[in-house]
């Protein structure tokens, strides 16, 4: 398997989601490590806009040829937008996990919850331990 890309400036979870904060909106996806582990992604099940999640609640599913894997919402908040492009072209998650492969956006309810997430350096350590 190739090198795992872990961009700086994002938040990360133990379940291998990433989160990018812009104002009060968080964009959420799965990490390069996650997409490599899953292999070819064949289907992405996303929440409906307007759904409200608690932190770390199940929010979606990413299916690969081999298995289905839950996606958890890294912060509490209401879903404002989902990535409709993925319905027909889920392999974008493999190709561009941090860009075109984003999954959904939520309006952050409580910014202090970000303290429960990892930074890039911590996440790299976690990946190192999992090797």
């Amino acid at each position: 398997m190739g090198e795992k890309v872990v961009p700086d400036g994002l938040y990360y979870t133990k379940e291998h989601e990433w989160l990018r904060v812009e104002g009060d909106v968080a964009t959420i996806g799965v990490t390069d490590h996650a997409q490599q582990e899953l292999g070819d992604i064949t289907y992405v099940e996303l929440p409906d806009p307007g759904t409200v999640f608690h932190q770390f609640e199940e929010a979606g599913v990413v299916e690969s040829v081999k298995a289905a894997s839950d996606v958890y919402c890294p912060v509490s908040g209401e879903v404002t937008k989902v990535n409709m492009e993925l319905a027909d072209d889920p392999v974008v998650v493999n190709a561009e996990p941090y860009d075109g492969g984003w999954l959904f956006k939520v309006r952050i309810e409580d910014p202090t919850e970000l303290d429960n997430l990892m930074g890039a350096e911590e996440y790299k350590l976690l990946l190192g331990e999992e090797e």
Partner: protein
Amino acid sequence: MAELTPLYERHVEMGARIIEFGGFMMPVQYSGIIEEHNAVRKAAGVFDVSHMGELEVSGKDALAFLNRLVTRNLEGLAKGRVAYGLMCREDGGILDDLTVYRRQDSYYLVVNASTAKADLAWMTAHRDQWGSDAEIRDLSKATGKIDLQGPLAAGIAAETCPLDTGKLTYFRFAEDRDSGMLVSRSGYTGEDGFEFYLPAAETAALWDRILQAGEGKGLLPCGLGARDTLRLEACLVLNGSDIGPEYDPIVAGLGWAVDLGKDDLVGVEALRSSAERVRVDGGTRVLAAFVLEGRSSGRHGDTIYDGENAVGLVTSGSFSPTLGRAVGMGYVAKNSAAAGTEVDVEIRKRRVRGKISQRPLYNRS
């Protein structure tokens, strides 16, 4: 500790993702399951399947002995031919599915990796119980196995295999006593292709020759992931998923591989009853294939509905790279198992529309 195949080093060098399967460290994918799958459908793919078990049965009682254990009638199996069959318990439950190669003076059985030891124990116990002189040898460890599959397989085999593979028609084999190589025209993907058996130490050399001959032609090394999606499209059953002790060959749609006329076949009474039940009882669950409307896939254990009635369970399910939709197989009440029947599969508590399909889901043109 999981065992290693003669090609393990190759898989590591080539960056395959390795998992444990059937007691062996096996490559599940190299470049990606879908890419490997498509290579086999459009060009060729090469698989390390050295984990499979090979058992040789010889002696003057070999035929009579095997004919009581294997569902297929082997009387008519000529030298140089291969037959698919199953071994069942007294209650008809499937122990394993296998291929039988009729050699000059013995039979060569190719069995699943995870069941090879149990198969050997089952065969040995019956041999002793029946006082048969059949000799059973486990050649699994000494044998490497490579499958070469795809529309370009014949050309690549002709370039790389010392045996005359061009002459072989489907389910026939050739062997070379000196080199210890055996090759059959057969496979587990729904494509044309070959299965090579050879001494463990020679396996890597053939693997390298095949990869070299396939360079620039679209051949890819393939892992068990693509093997699984390919066999699923071809509706070839997988022991442990679609068949096992809880199912018999009749309900699994493998009645064609069972000779119910063999009175001394282990399990024959149960198999005859099953055949009668399937004939008269529309509620009996039989193995059927289905295609779903979207890309989201049912998985082993998911429930199949006909309207409000739960009529079956998924045994294999995956996204089909060839069809671009989710497909699967499962045991479905016979009344709901006809091709064209609209069914739903419950995936994560949501019903997904689909239809029972003809088997196989994929036919090579």
